[in-house]
């Protein structure tokens, strides 16, 4: 594929387009004006992941904006995938920010609905939700491919984005989940990252449905993974994080291991085993490692999973 045929020409797009197994990471910006946090995290992940998601006020908690943080990551050698939620901005603000992100050299965007305000630190805020994630994907695709704003007005030049979406294979109703992915593909998504997978058998069952529909040939699917630091985190996710499916076997495996280096080592080992298993699933094009506030675990996990060196693409 030549450069002109790429939709956005990002490192992530090139790796996935060439059929190489992609690895992405995740960085949460800080709850302060300290931009050096992103700088540190970007440097830590450099050479170990192909691109890094920059969260957008994740769990509805205010942080440095994803676009500003994405720019910082880029300045520090890490390709950003900015996340954009529908919770905080209407279509005017979203389009303005997308144009702005393009001018800053940011060309991967993951389109999300966003966690509800009630989960975050400003529960009294008005939720915008002018668009939903599927609307956002379509709007971004129309900007990129049709050179049109959401209202149909022309623009020249148009921004270039490799368009991502998320999907939770463990949400209910289970039968609807692959339909929802299909809707996102039809809207224009190029790649998809899943919610954290702990229940591998259930993920495999979901992938069977995805393959039966041929969806894995229409979108690049990246399996999401969160390394566990200990049993506490596993229990928290099982009981308090909406849409998360943590089987008892995972809890049992982490139970009784001393909290600290021992549980960290076991969590990393489990993550490596899961990556190897997920990589074997037909239709999985890469892995997305969400090491929440534990970015320093990523290099070792990626190396132990046999995913180094990361491919370079022209």
């Amino acid at each position, binding site marked *: 594929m030549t450069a002109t045929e790429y939709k956005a020409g990002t490192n992530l797009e090139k790796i996935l387009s060439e059929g190489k197994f992609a690895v992405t990471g995740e960085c949460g910006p800080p709850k302060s004006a300290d931009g050096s946090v992103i700088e540190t995290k970007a440097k830590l992940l450099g050479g170990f992941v192909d691109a890094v998601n920059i969260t957008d006020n994740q769990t509805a908690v205010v942080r440095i904006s994803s676009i500003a943080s994405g720019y910082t990551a880029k300045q520090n050698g890490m390709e950003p995938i900015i996340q954009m939620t529908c919770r905080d901005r209407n279509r005017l603000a979203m389009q303005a920010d997308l144009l702005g992100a393009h001018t800053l050299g940011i060309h991967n965007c993951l389109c999300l609905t966003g966690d*509800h*305000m*009630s989960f975050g630190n400003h*529960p*009294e*805020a*008005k*939720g915008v939700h002018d668009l939903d994630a599927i609307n956002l994907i379509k709007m971004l695709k129309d900007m990129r491919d049709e050179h049109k704003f959401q209202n149909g007005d022309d623009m020249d030049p148009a921004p270039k984005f490799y368009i991502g979406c998320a999907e939770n294979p463990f949400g209910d109703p289970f039968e609807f989940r692959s339909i929802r992915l299909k809707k996102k593909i039809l809207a224009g998504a190029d790649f998809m990252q899943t919610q954290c997978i702990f229940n591998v058998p259930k993920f495999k069952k979901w992938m069977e449905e995805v393959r039966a529909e041929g969806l894995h040939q229409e979108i690049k699917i990246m399996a999401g993974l969160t390394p566990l630091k200990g049993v506490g985190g596993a229990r928290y996710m099982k009981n308090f994080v909406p849409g998360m499916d943590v089987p008892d076997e995972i809890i049992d495996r982490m139970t009784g291991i001393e909290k600290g280096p021992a549980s960290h080592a076991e969590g990393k080992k489990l993550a490596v085993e899961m990556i190897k298993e997920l990589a074997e699933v037909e239709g999985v094009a890469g892995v997305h490692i969400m090491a929440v506030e534990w970015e320093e675990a990523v290099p070792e996990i990626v190396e132990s999973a046999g995913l180094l060196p990361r491919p370079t693409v022209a």
Partner: protein
Amino acid sequence: MITAERKPLDEILALVGDKKKVLVAGCDTCVAICLTGGEKEAEILASELRIKAEQDGTGAEVEHTAAIRQCEWEYLDMIADKVKDADIVVSMACGIGIQSMAEKFAPRIVVPAVNTNMLGMPQEHAVWLERCGACGECVIGETAGICPVVRCSKSLMNGPCGGSHGGKCEVTTPEKEEIDCAWALIWDRLKEQGREEMMLINRPPKNWSKSSSGGPRKMVREEAKPV
């Protein structure tokens, strides 16, 4: 009261599709008072649908009825027999009534013939104005009995924006009619009440979690529950 406007006939016909036994169900409360969806309007819509069915030779049979209130279970019991014979119900109630019908008579298909638009009042005959946004935290005790949440186009809480001119808002209705500036009205009435100092209240950001923004709301009156 809740107000609604009837949908265009073509939209209603598209919702009805090829169903053969159609029941148009009016509601004799709010939508009857705003002359949109009472028994009389249900009869008119049924006639329109019947004429269209004859013109197009669809063979559809159209009946009409009306509930005293579509939003309360006991009143729905009173029209249950009519609903039983229908393939589809075209409800002319507000969104609450339509959903009550759909739930009560599930899985029978219930479709809306109206667009519910506001909580308002008839300012004069055949003219309704929006008065309440059901925001869950009323502020009009401080704003001279005038709601800035829905009567100010920007839901401002601390006085008018720079777009207020001659008592009018910078925004007009879709029909290009002028809208009163809510904050100009508030200012005038506060002066009349000798309470201008209330304009100085610096209101913090509103708590929208009590509005629909916080998720679907539920109200329970424990003391009113049957023992």
